[in-house]
Each structure stands twice: as C-alpha cells, then as structure tokens.
C-alpha cells in the first residue's frame, strides 16, 4: 500500500517535471522576444521608425550619426531572391530525380549526399565561396567578386538540401493513382511527372521554398565571407557589386559597437526576426490549408 502512494507521488512529481520541461520552449521564445525588443525598440524609438527602416544612410560613427538599414533590408531581399532563383530549380529538379527517376541502386548514395550537404557547416560554405566562387565571379563576370552574385550562389547551394528533402517527400506522397490516370491517357513518364505529380505536390514544394527563404535570409557567416559587406546606396546596388545584408550588418559591427550603435544592431536583429515570423506564419497557413484539402 505504501508503495502505491509513493508511486502516486512519483507520478505527480514527474508529471510536473515533464510539464516544466515542455514550458521551457515557450519561456525561451518569450525571453528571446522580450530581450530583443527591450533592447531593440528603444533604439528604434530613439532613431525614429522611418529614419531606421526607410533610410538608406548607415553612418553610425559620423556626427551626426545616421542609422538607416533600408539598404541592408534590400540587400537581404536580393541575396535571398538570388538564392531562390538558383536553388529552387536545381533543388526541385533534383527532388524530382530522387523521387521519380533515380535507379534504386544509387538512391541511398544520393540521399546520403543530400544529408551531408545539409550537415556541412556554414563556415565551410563561406570559405568555399571565398576561395572558389568569388574568384570565379571575378574572373568570368567582372567586379571584385565579392558580390550579390557570389552570395546568391553560395546561398543557393546552401538551401538545396532543404528544398530537395522536403520536395522529395511531398512528391513521394502523391498517390500512384494520379500517375496511372495520366499514363492511361497516353502521357509519357515525363509529362505525367511534370504536369500531374509535381503540381499535386505543390504545397510541399511551397513549404520547402519558404523554409529555404528562411534559411537564406538568416544565414550570416557564409554571406559575410563572400558579400563584401559594403553598405551601398540603393541606386548603386548591382549584381556584381558588394552588398551588406541585415545579418552581416550585425556580425561585422557588433564587435566594436557600443551605445546606440550597439542597440541599432540589435534592432536590425529585431527586423530580421520579424521577417522570420512572417515566414513562419506563411508556413502555418500553408499547413492548415493543405490539411483542409
């Protein structure tokens, strides 16, 4: 009998422990929002919302200082768009290959390769970009190589595994009967895959693209090593010229920033965070829509 009551206590205690552990994620998320906002919002207030977001002049050490991050927001959008332009077609085609065309005996090797691509640290991508992609762009396209283009190429490669693995599994989940219907009408394998199977997997493909955008927009170290990091006035932003993104703004200046300068970098992080939250919302919208169908 004693045993039973001690079991009961144990059960209750552990249930509380489980619940507390589960709340850690919520507490952590709230803390992240709270501390970023506590440091970021006053800085934005002091600089002025419009002078911060819609101002392309970033000169934190000038007197008077100017803290406009528009150029970096645009920079983040550009390199992310570049990554999507490069990574999505290749990644999607590779996913189609893995799901529909790949011979069974090499499938495992390819799958491991994609996993390995996902596991390579961003610092290695950045170093590879600096040593190979930047000289390549300099040689064949011009400029000094540190550019939107180089950053887009590296980010395009970095989002490949995300695009590939999520698109592949959603293509695999398309019922075989759709393909049969198409074959039955005389379509070829390729026509069937591209016109029926892949369109049927579009919510999964879209999910993979949004996750890819999230990875590209938040990537820091790989970009900082290939983008050149100069703050460009909006009208001087070009494919082959250097660029600074929100993430690289933080990492290049944080080590020597202080006061409002430091807070403005944290505020840059807040803006980045808002971007990511928007992407997350888009994701859950897609999820709830595909569940409804």
């Amino acid at each position, binding site marked *: 009998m004693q045993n039973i009551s001690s079991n009961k206590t144990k059960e209750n205690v552990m249930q509380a422990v489980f619940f507390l552990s589960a709340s850690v*994620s919520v507490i952590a998320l709230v803390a992240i929002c709270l501390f970023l906002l506590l440091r970021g919002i006053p800085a934005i207030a002091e600089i002025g919302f419009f002078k911060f977001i819609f101002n392309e002049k970033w000169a934190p050490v000038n007197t008077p200082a100017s803290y406009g991050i528009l150029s970096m927001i645009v920079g983040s959008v550009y390199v992310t768009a570049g990554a999507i332009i490069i990574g999505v077609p290749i990644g999607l085609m590779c996913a189609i290959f893995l799901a529909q065309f790949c011979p069974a005996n090499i499938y495992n090797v390819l799958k491991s390769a994609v996993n390995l691509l996902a596991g390579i640290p961003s610092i290695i991508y950045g170093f590879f970009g600096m040593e190979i992609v930047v000289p390549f762009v300099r040689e064949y396209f011009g400029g000094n190589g540190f550019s939107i283009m180089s950053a887009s190429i590296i980010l395009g490669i970095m989002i490949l595994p995300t695009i590939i693995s999520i698109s592949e599994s959603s293509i695999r989940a398309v019922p075989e009967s759709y393909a049969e219907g198409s074959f039955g009408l005389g379509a070829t394998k*390729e026509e069937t895959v591209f016109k029926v199977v892949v369109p049927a997997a579009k919510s999964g493909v879209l999910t993979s693209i949004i996750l890819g955008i999230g990875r590209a927009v938040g990537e820091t170290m790989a970009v900082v090593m290939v983008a050149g990091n100069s703050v460009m006035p909006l009208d001087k932003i070009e494919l082959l010229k250097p660029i600074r993104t929100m993430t690289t703004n933080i990492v290049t200046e944080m080590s020597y920033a202080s006061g409002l300068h430091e807070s403005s970098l944290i505020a840059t992080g807040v803006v980045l965070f808002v971007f990511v939250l928007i992407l997350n919302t888009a994701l859950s919208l897609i999820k709830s829509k595909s569940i409804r169908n």
Partner: protein
Amino acid sequence: MEAFKTEGNLKKRKIISIVLKTAVWFCGILTVGILVYILLFILVRGIPNINMEFLFGEYNSETLSALSSIVATIEMIAISLVIAVPIGVFCAIYLTEYAKRGSRAVKIIRLAVDTLAGIPSIVYGLFGMILFVNILGFRASILSGVCTISIMILPVIISTSEEAIKSVPDMYREGSLGLGATRLRTVFKIVLPAAMPGILSGVILAIGRIVGETAALIFTSGTNVMKNPTLNLHSSQRTLAIHMYMLASEGLPHSKDMAFATGAILIVIVFLVNFAAEKLANRIGRQ
C-alpha cells in the same frame, strides 16, 4: 467527335520528354557534384596541413593550434547535451504521453518549438549576448555559449524525440499498463527504450549543429583562443568553427592553410555524425 492528329505531335513530345529527363538527371548529378567538389576542395588542401603541432601543440602564431578549440567544442557539445537532451525528451514525453491531444497547451508549445526552429542563429547570438553575457554577467564564456546553444538545439531534439515516441506502437503501452505498471514506469521502461534510436538520431543531429555553429557563438563564447586549453566554463574559448572563421579572415601567411586543416577536421566530424545518424535511421527503418 472528330479525331485530332497525334503522330506528328508525338515526335515533338518525345523530344521534350527526353530534354526533361536529361535536365532532371543533370540536376541530380550536379547536386552530388557540388558536394563532392566542396568536400574534395577542403580535404585535399586541408589534410596535408594537419600535423601533431596543430592538433596537440600549444597555440601561438606559428602552430595556430586547434587544441583549445577542439577542447572547447567537446565541452560545448557535452554540456549543451546534458542540459538540452533531458529537457527536450521530457518535453516530447509531455506532448505525446501526458498532454491532451489538441489542447491549448500543446498548441502553444508546438508553436513555440516551430518558431524556435526557424530563428536564425545570429538572432540566438544576439539574445545570448544580451541575456547571458551582459545581464546575467557570464561575460563572453563557454558558459554563455552553452546556455545559448542549448536553447538553439531544443527544437531538433524535441521534434525527433516526439516522432520517435509517437512511432512506438500503442500495444507496447497497453501491454505494460495491463500488467499494472504505472504510466511513469511504462514511459521509462517501455516507451523510451523503444524510442531510443530515434531520440539518438536527434541528439546526433544536434551535435552536428553545435559543431558547425558560428553565428550564435561568436558573441557569446567569443573568439578568444587559449595558449593551453582549459575546461573553465568562465573562460572564453572559440570552438572549431569559429577557429576556422578567424583563421580564414586573419592575414598570417599560413593561416589559410590552417583554415583548410580546421575545415578538414570539421568535415570529418560531419561525416561521422551523418554516418551515425544514417545507421540509426536504417535500424529504425528495419524495426
């Protein structure tokens, strides 16, 4: 209904089909090609530069030894896992075994986990800097790095553990509960052991993330390097990935060679991590 011609059209369709098939094959091969290129590029130039001095020597501008970074990386992995694995697994247990399905608490926790998973590491870095380095006064140290990274790896541990626990068949639980075992005993004696390979694969993925992390650590555990490594949690020591970053951006004549060497070590670790994760995944697949 009048028939439409197909024969002339068929040739064009066949050509388009072949073009598409070629494109698909090309992208598959291209992806592998990129991977192989990156790996070879780092390994070929890195491995010859790995020597005893670099691995085990004292750090100076001559050796640029990675020893302090190796120690810091191992320390970071060990302590972060000790913190994050129990919390993550317990959270997964709560979500799968204790919480009411679809309850408000579950929804909020899931939303938090999903959101945490999407936050870029630089934002974690900023948060760690504000809270651990500044407010709590841990300064730039392994401790600050560990605290930051533990939060960062929580989502991956939670989601893989949750998947693993969910895939344990209900009859196992019923069998145990039917013998009069308590829910708690069932969880620890039946469910967790059955879910262990899945949980482990999550842990391995987390190790991979810690090893490769730079942006979240650069302002928390810092870029400092020790002449002789220390296990002191309050000291700032850079991990291998940051070591590579610093070497890549330093101007010393042989620092780039040593960046390659560090990169080679990182790649070998990533190799091992992926290999282990796949072995586990295969084992789960066979079960």
